[in-house]
């Protein structure tokens, strides 16, 4: 009830039109929906744009340091959106005041693994565990929002998740114009129109190299931008 009302509200605020470039068949298949991170409305909007059958089994991935702070956020994260709440790296290395940083961000490209990377690897396995056999997730592999809405390089959590769950389907979701609706650092949204574009499902190739894979995912997301 509440989640449907909130999803509808988010779509009204963001004036979202939804486009599927390829059908999501079957809708209930386990997938990772990965989007460009532009505002606090992002995951609600992706979630609300999903077909009902897919939405019922899709959970956002959220960072505990932001979403477990304060009663309302905690309620929304755990009861309304059933978020997969993840503790971030223990070093606080990547902590960010706005809390918009998402968990998959924590796996960095370092070859030697400092403590926070090991913590992040724990996060990825926690996500894989929460996904189980049937749950889909929504993630933002950039980890944070840029000030101007440009797409940042992807962190490698997506790659490590695919190593843990071979054959996982990845669906790029491009959010258009949300940076203007609710820019970083603003509280009040301006009701402009936005677009949510779902791309065709992708998979990691066998033996695909990390950088190549992440680059391919990022390009697939960029390709969904409106001309």
């Amino acid at each position, binding site marked *: 009830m509440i989640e449907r009302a909130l999803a509808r509200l988010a779509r009204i605020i963001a*004036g979202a039109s939804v486009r599927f470039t390829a059908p999501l068949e079957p809708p209930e298949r386990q997938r990772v929906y990965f989007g460009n991170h532009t505002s606090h409305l992002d995951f609600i909007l992706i979630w609300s744009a999903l077909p009902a059958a897919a939405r019922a089994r899709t959970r956002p991935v959220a960072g505990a340091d932001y979403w477990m702070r304060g009663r309302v956020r905690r309620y929304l994260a755990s009861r309304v959106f059933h978020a997969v709440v993840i503790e971030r790296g223990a070093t606080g290395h990547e902590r960010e005041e706005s809390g918009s940083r998402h968990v998959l961000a924590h796996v960095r490209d370092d070859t030697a693994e400092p403590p926070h990377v090991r913590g992040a690897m724990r996060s990825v396995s926690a996500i894989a565990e929460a996904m189980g056999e049937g749950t889909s997730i929504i993630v933002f592999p950039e980890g944070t929002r840029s000030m101007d809405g440009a797409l940042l390089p992807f962190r490698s959590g997506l790659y490590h998740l695919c190593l843990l769950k071979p054959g996982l389907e990845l669906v790029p979701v491009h959010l258009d114009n949300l940076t*203007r609706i609710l*820019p970083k650092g*603003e509280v*009040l949204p301006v*009701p*402009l*129109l936005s677009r949510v574009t779902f791309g065709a499902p992708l998979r990691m190739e066998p033996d695909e190299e990390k950088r190549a894979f992440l680059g391919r995912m990022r390009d697939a997301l960029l390709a969904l931008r409106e001309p």
Partner: protein
Amino acid sequence: MPRAMSPLLLNPILARLMVGVLMLLVIGTVVGAILAMRARSESAKATVANLNARIRAWWVMVAVFVIAVATGGVGSVILFALMSFLALREFMTLTPTSRADHGVLFWAFFIFAPIQYLLVWMQWYGLFAILIPVYAFVTIPGRMALAGDTTRFLERTATVQWGLLACVYCVSYAPALLMLVVPDYAGGRTGLLFYLVLIAQLNDVLQYTFGKLFGKRPIAPTVSPNKTWEGFIGGTLTTVAIGTALWWATPFTPLVAAAMSLVITILGFAGGLTMSAIKRDRGVKDYGTLIEGHGGVLDRVDSLLFAAPVYFHLIRFFYVP
């Protein structure tokens, strides 16, 4: 002093106009169905499908408008306020603004637009007429300068100001017609509004129809290839003829009704062409997708933008003592 707006019940003139519109819709629907059966080629089928989508949308729009007018002042003010809001949303989405404009955009949507319609509802003409040309004009650049971003400053200020003028100020002149009390006119205040909207929209439909049937020579090919001399002349003549024939529904003599219809059709055409030029500059065909077959709200009200204020002031100057 602001006066409260009294609800207006349907009067005989409005009722007759509505029956006329209903008959037009029925005729349009029947013709659309016949054309759909006859269409053979792919392009003809696509055109007819779009035509029928437009006609279906017209039923909804007419129903909404009739309900709004029938509920008197409040209904009309709410309807046009909503249209202004949606139109402004479509306009601002298309025009580039910077991150620093967030505050000003918030003001446009949530302060200036609501106050403008509040003034229409209160019938406070003095402030209604200057809120956006004066008060928005002096506050928007000031607020934007405070935000600190000087890149293309004039362009950004002008965009927000223009959006407010077109989508809020101009559109609000339509429900503002309810402020005008013309002595000895039986149509009531909603009669003036109904006549304006009827003529402006009829002109759109007829220019579209004549353009589709006979259109060859585009008037401004770089702006809108669909607006042709044939469509313009055929549509204008037919609309003025109908507008003159409906003189009994207005406070005008037949001759004045013809002149008023001509003003509405020409300004309607100019408004549509201007909004097309902006769309063309931004590289899109429609402002939105809200109304099936028509595009967005702004695509539908563009013919009212220039016509409404001029029609209002002509009546106010010549007919309101």
